[in-house]
């Protein structure tokens, strides 16, 4: 039975806070690129971009990244829905913010960094996640976290986002 632990209002507040933190840490929106990790990172990146535009009046470029082919865990599943990696920007010397919904083992983030390196050489890569549920297998820690949710390994954390799931929220089951 799924339990709602973040409702849509809190969800929105978290994203807004993250937007402010990103601006603060990078001293403004210059040279920022938001890259959403497929699947739910993509709309999250667009939301954050919109918040920043509201705050600063400047539109931050976004891109999307599919890391299926870069993952190193065995028994990999490649999702069949079409989710092209679209990085048509020059990421050299920019500050890339990787955006994902849930941070768990850290393997997708590792894969994402590998993939990014194939596309160019950013000045920095930062990581923003909506939920950090622990159980890291790699030395990776996020720069921006919406909410830390301690979980056991066999629990499932589902981030819902209205563009895909029809509503915003975080569930645990």
């Amino acid at each position: 039975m799924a339990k709602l632990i973040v409702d849509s209002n809190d969800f929105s507040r978290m994203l807004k806070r993250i937007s402010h933190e990103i601006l603060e840490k990078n001293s403004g929106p210059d040279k920022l690129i938001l890259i959403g990790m497929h699947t739910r990172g993509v709309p999250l990146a667009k939301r954050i971009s919109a918040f920043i535009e509201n705050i600063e009046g400047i539109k931050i470029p976004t891109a999307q990244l599919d890391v299926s082919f870069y993952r190193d865990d065995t028994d990999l599943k490649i999702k069949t829905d079409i989710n092209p990696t679209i990085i048509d920007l020059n990421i050299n010397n920019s500050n890339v913010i990787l955006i994902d919904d849930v941070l768990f083992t850290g393997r997708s983030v590792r894969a994402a960094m590998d993939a990014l390196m194939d596309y160019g050489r950013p000045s920095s890569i930062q990581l923003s996640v909506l939920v950090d549920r622990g159980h890291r297998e790699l030395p990776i820690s996020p720069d921006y976290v919406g909410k830390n949710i301690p979980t056991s390994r066999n629990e499932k954390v589902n981030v819902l986002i209205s563009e895909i799931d029809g509503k915003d929220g975080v569930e645990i089951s």
Partner: protein
Amino acid sequence: MILDNKLNNLLDIDQLTKNDILYIFEFAEKLSLILNGPVKKVPVLRGKTIINYFSEPSTRTRVSFENAGKILSADVINVSSSGSSDEKGESFINAVQTLESIGADILIIRHSDSGAPYFVSRNIQIPVINAGDGSHAHPTQTLIDLYTVYKSIGEIEGLNLTILGDNIHSRVSRSAVLGFSTLGAKVTFCSPTTMNANFLSDNISKEDIDNYPAVIYTSNLKDALSESDLIMTLRTQFERKASLVFPNINEYTRLFKLSNESLKYAPDKAKILHPGPMNLGVEIDGYLSESERSLINQQVMNSVAIRMALLIILIGEHTLDSI
């Protein structure tokens, strides 16, 4: 989505169900995103070694496999028969077993003897892909042809495929019959009687009628093209002239060449396929291969994505997961 049968090798299309073929297409579709992106490299097969063992000259198939392997970050070694052990008297099987011991993860085999990949496959542990064996089979080419048609026309069920030319010596045609029939197309052979695999078409016995897809044969080009949705012209194999299969090229081209003129027999929507390499002016006129009717360039472009998919399916860790 999963394969109906676990694939340990790819020897011919008869190993695949319709579902398997669609699975390979979906995989290839996904992989063509890499081909169309700015960085044509992913580490999916990093640390794997692919050996192309080609004992018969081939450029396009070998390069296509090589490129597929390299895009996936595998190490690709090309072994061709000139300069290989074949000429030093080492037996074929020893050469192949040596390649396995050296650490190959998969062997891609092209051989002039029908069945050579079957013989190799049962004598080594690693997967084998048949990249063309004698007159027998060329399954990857057929998957490419099917994928090309699937992408440009869509549904293959119910299409009429006319295979034009020397089908008796053609591995492409044998695999095409199996593949296109599996996806529900109807196949017609058109050739001089001397170039027709008649035991597979008009002369098939009652006992074998269930063992092979129904193939129609005609030596009349007009009849063959009149309801065609797809026209596959085969390469005329001059090197097999020993069998004296037609009197001379003039007579052949007059009766069987695909030209603007003969193409008028076919419906306007009919598309042209050719597995290459082409003898321009013999089985097909050069301008047709460049025309909008032709899928020939797409065949070449799709070849890498299909071969990448097969490499991942046979030696990679990835599987497709539909959500």
